[in-house]
């Protein structure tokens, strides 16, 4: 890894996965492309670990913060 601020990378991937339903889905279905889409070059170690993640729970998390149509 280069000398970029890793905490910024961390914030990007965790934050996006938590609150962006499309990104959460992409992280589950094609983690390499998802990481590249936010400027992170995936390593084998990352991809192996991401394969273990419970994709549904992350998608439900992202959904919890999606705007609800018709809310008053």
């Amino acid at each position: 890894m280069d000398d970029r601020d890793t905490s910024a990378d961390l914030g990007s991937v965790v934050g996006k996965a938590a609150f962006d339903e499309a990104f959460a889905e992409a992280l589950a279905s094609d983690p390499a492309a998802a990481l590249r889409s936010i400027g992170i070059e995936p390593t084998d170690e990352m991809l192996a670990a991401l394969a273990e993640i419970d994709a549904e729970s992350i998608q439900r998390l992202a959904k919890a913060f999606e705007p609800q149509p018709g809310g008053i």
Partner: protein
Amino acid sequence: MYDEALIEIAVEADMQLRANLTHEAPFIAREVDAWLDEMFGGLGLAEIFTRSDAFPMLLIPWWVDGSIGERDRRLHRALTYSTMNGYLYIRLVDNLMDRDAAGEVSLLPALSFFHFEFVEPYRRLFEPGDRFWSDLRTTWLATADVTMNDAQLADIDKITFERVSARKTGAAKIPVAAVSHYRRRLHRQPEWNDFTDAFGRWHQMHNDIFSWRKDADHQAATYFLSEGRRRRPNAAIDAWVVDEGFSWGMDELDRFMTDLRRIAGLLKAEEALAYLDEREVLLALQEEDVMIGLAALSSVRDVVGR
């Protein structure tokens, strides 16, 4: 959460609103129909107003009336019709103040209908000199004042949240005043007003937490986002939400709920307490989804952060 009788009244009010608008202003009616369909995904006003996550603006006067005696259906038909119109007035103004809703400027003339029909039912219930009108005037103008004030805030701390942002739902006290004056039972009105304000705090905080991403995208200032920037001025806001913001927000919600329960207890408002129980169950389900997801994400953090 909602009695069948109240749902029936809401359905009638929805139909009456659309029929009156079509009769008086058919062109506006078509535009308003399209606006409501887009905003509410094709659901009727009755469904929207009685949803489990809606602000209980029809329920609070229903509880007030029920605490006095047998409910007066005619009164609630008038209140519900007025409240729907008042809400749409406020919602249209809010949407227009939102930077992404510029297209709704063409709907501005519809405000004439909403405002007239918000006030009209009260004209039939109260004589011109009735003290209700003073409550309506004070509450309606205070709500407008905090709405404008809130839109201009760049940073919101707890005091400003309670004094301004959380009072944007203050107009919900108008039907409470109507029941109190109509029934000539004014001694509990201050506590019911406190309850309505306390629910406004809880409701606004709930919105702040679960709509934070949309608010951040729209660069809207909220108490929740402001607190994140205060606590982590150099961090991405989403990282703060994941690390501590969500838990902090839930703790704030819990404090607001404690206050709501205290006031409902003072009022011996069993129906309101049961409603709060149900809202807490719904919130716990939302919280569970978030907490399980955040736990799963901790492994993303471990890998990417290494």
